[in-house]
C-alpha cells in the first residue's frame, strides 16, 4: 500500500523487569528513581512492523506518538534513530493521573489530528500490563482493531495479519483504517542506524530546548524539532483527562510485605540436602 501514513503508539516505561536488589529500599518498597526508563519492549516490536511496511512500499511515513513527561522525548529520538520519520510528544499537566481510558481519549484525539491510515502499538506496557490502550484507542476512533499481531502484509487494500493467541494462531484480513497491537513474539526491532543517530541526536522538543543552555542553541545543532502537543493542540476536554476523566480510582496501595512463615534454614551441605529429601519422602510429599 503506497503512500499510507502510519502512527506508532509508544510509551516510555520504568524497566520493571530488572528490579535488582539496589532497586529495593530498606523498607522493602521500590526505589523508582533507580529504575531506568526504557522504550516499552512491545512498542519496539510495533515500530519494526511499521518500518517493514515503510520499506516495502513507496511513500509510507511513520510517526511516533507518545504521551508522557518531557523526558519521554527520549523514546521519540530512539525511534528516529531506528527509522521513524518524525514524532509527537503529548505532554501536559492535565494528562497526569489518567487511567487507560483517559489516556486513550487523549491519544485518540492526537491520532485524529495526525489522520493516519494505520495505527500500530505494542500489545501492552510492562509497567501496567493491562493491554487496554490499543483497543480503547480503536474504539474511540471508531476503527476496527486486531490485537496480538505477529506478522502482517498487504494483499490489495487489505492487511493480512497473523495473530498469536494463547492456544494457537489465527490469520485475519482487515481493511484500513485500523488499529493493530503487536505481540512480543513478533520480530525484534532493528538497531539504531548510525547515519540516523547523527541526523537526529540533537532533535529536541521546544521545552527541552528552553531547558538547555543558550550556547547549545547558538551552536545551531537544534535544527530538527520534535512536535510537542498539549491539551489545546488536540482540542481535548480537560474534564475527560487526568483524575476527573478516569473511571477507575486507586483506593489503596499496599507495599508488599510477604507474610513470614516458620522456615527451616538449610545449607547446601550433603547432610542437609539428604535429610530434607528423607523428610519429604517420609511425609509423602515426594515419591
Amino acid at each position, binding site marked *: 500500500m503506497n503512500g499510507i501514513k502510519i502512527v506508532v503508539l509508544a510509551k516510555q516505561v520504568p524497566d520493571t523487569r530488572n528490579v535488582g*536488589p539496589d532497586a529495593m529500599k530498606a523498607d522493602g518498597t521500590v526505589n523508582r528513581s533507580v529504575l531506568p526508563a526504557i522504550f516499552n519492549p512491545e512498542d519496539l516490536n510495533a515500530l519494526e512492523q511499521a518500518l517493514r511496511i515503510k520499506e516495502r512500499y513507496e511513500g509510507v511515513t511513520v510517526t511516533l506518538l507518545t504521551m508522557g513527561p518531557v523526558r519521554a522525548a527520549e523514546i521519540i529520538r530512539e525511534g528516529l534513530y531506528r527509522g521513524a520519520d518524525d514524532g509527537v510528544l503529548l505532554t501536559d499537566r492535565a494528562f497526569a493521573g489518567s487511567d487507560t481510558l483517559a489516556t486513550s481519549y487523549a491519544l485518540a484525539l492526537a491520532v485524529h489530528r495526525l489522520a493516519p491510515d494505520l495505527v500500530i502499538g505494542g500489545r501492552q506496557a510492562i509497567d501496567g500490563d493491562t493491554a487496554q490502550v490499543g483497543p*480503547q484507542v480503536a474504539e474511540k476512533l471508531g476503527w476496527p482493531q*486486531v490485537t496480538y499481531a505477529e506478522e502482517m502484509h498487504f494483499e490489495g487494500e487489505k492487511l493480512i495479519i497473523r495473530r498469536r*493467541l494463547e*492456544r494457537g494462531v*489465527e490469520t485475519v484480513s482487515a481493511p484500513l483504517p485500523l488499529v493493530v497491537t503487536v505481540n512480543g513474539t513478533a520480530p525484534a526491532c532493528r538497531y539504531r542506524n548510525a547515519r540516523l543517530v547523527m541526523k537526529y541526536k540533537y532533535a529536541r522538543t521546544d521545552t527541552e530546548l528552553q531547558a538547555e543552555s543558550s550556547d547549545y542553541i547558538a551552536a545551531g545543532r537544534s535544527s530538527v524539532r520534535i512536535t510537542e502537543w498539549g491539551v489545546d493542540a488536540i482540542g481535548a476536554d480537560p474534564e475527560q483527562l487526568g483524575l476527573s476523566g478516569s473511571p477507575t480510582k486507586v483506593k489503596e496501595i499496599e507495599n508488599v510485605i510477604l507474610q513470614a512463615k516458620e*522456615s527451616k534454614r538449610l*545449607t547446601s551441605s550433603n547432610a542437609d540436602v539428604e535429610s530434607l529429601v528423607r523428610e519429604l519422602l517420609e511425609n509423602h510429599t515426594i515419591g
Partner: protein
Amino acid sequence: MNNLFVFCELDEGRPADVSLELLTRGRSLANTLGCRLEAVVLGSGLDGIENELFPYGADVVHVADDPVLEHYRTLPYTSVITGLFRQEQPGVALMGATSTGRDLGPRVSSALHSGLTADCTSLEIGDHYVKKTDTTYKNLLYQIRPAFGGNIIATIINPDHRPQMATVREGVMKREIVNRNHRGELKKIDVASFIRPEDLAVEIIERHMEARKVDIKSAQIIVSGGYGMGSKENFALLYELASVLGGEVAASRAAVDAGYAGHERQVGQTGVTVRPKLYIACGISGQIQHTAGMNQSGKIIAINNDPMAPINSIADYVINGDVAEVIPKLIKYYKANAR
C-alpha cells in the same frame, strides 16, 4: 438492574474453566450484594449451553446464538455485549483475562465509558468514603491486583461508572458447583438487532488451535526457575529434577522474559496460578507478581544464594546455596532414598 454479569467464554464449545471460576466467585459476590448472577454466552449452535452454567449458580443465562458469532471477533462481540449492557445496566461485569477477554474488555469499557481493571488476583465488596464531598459509596467492587512489576498491591474502584469491570486470569479463583439441579431463566439475545454490517469488516481467514501442550496447572510437583538460574542451559537441571520427581517445570516472568522458558510455563499474575503439593523455587527472588501465582502451594522449598530473597519468607524450607550445586544433590539423594 445492577446485577452481576459474567461473560462466559467457550473453549471448543464448552464453557471455559476461567468462566466457571468467575461464575463461582460471582455467585458469592452476588450474594453479598443481594443481586442476581447473570451469565452471557455468545457463539453458534449453543442449544443447551445454559444447563452447563446453571449449576454454578447463574440466575439468568443470556444466549446469543448466531453463525456470525461462531468464532470470536472483536466488533460483533463488542456490539452484542455493549448493546446488552445498555439494556440491562449491570452493576458489575467480569471476564476472563484470556486472549478474548483482554481484547473485548477494553473495547466494551471504552464504549460504555466504564472503568476496567485487568488481571485482578482478588475481588471483594466494600465501601468507600470520599472526605471532600462527604460521600460514602456502598458496596463497591474492590478490584485487587499487583502493580508495578508486582512490588505493590493496588485496590482499584470505579465509584461513579457502571458496570464495574474486571478481568481475572484462569486458575486464580476456585471453581465450584453450587447445586447440580439448580435451574434459572434462559434469555435469548436478539443478535440481529445489535450487529451492524460494518462490524463484519475483519474476516478470519484461518485458525489453528492447538491442544494445551504444557499443563503446569494440574502438576502435583513443580520445579520452578527464575532469573537466578542464569542461563537456558542451567534450566536443563530443572527438567532433570522434575522428571525424576514426576513433576513439571515452571518459570518466573523474569526467566521467561530472559528466554529461559516459554510463556506457557510462566507462574504468576500474568501467567498461570498453581497450587501444587510441592513447589521448588530455584533462583527465584519472589516478587509478589510471582508469589501471587504460587503461594497456595502445599509446601514450598526455596533454593537460592540470597538470604534476603523475599521468597524465603513464604518458604517452608530455605536452602541457602548455589542452585547448580544443590539440584544435582537433590536428584542424587532422591535416587538413593526413594523406593
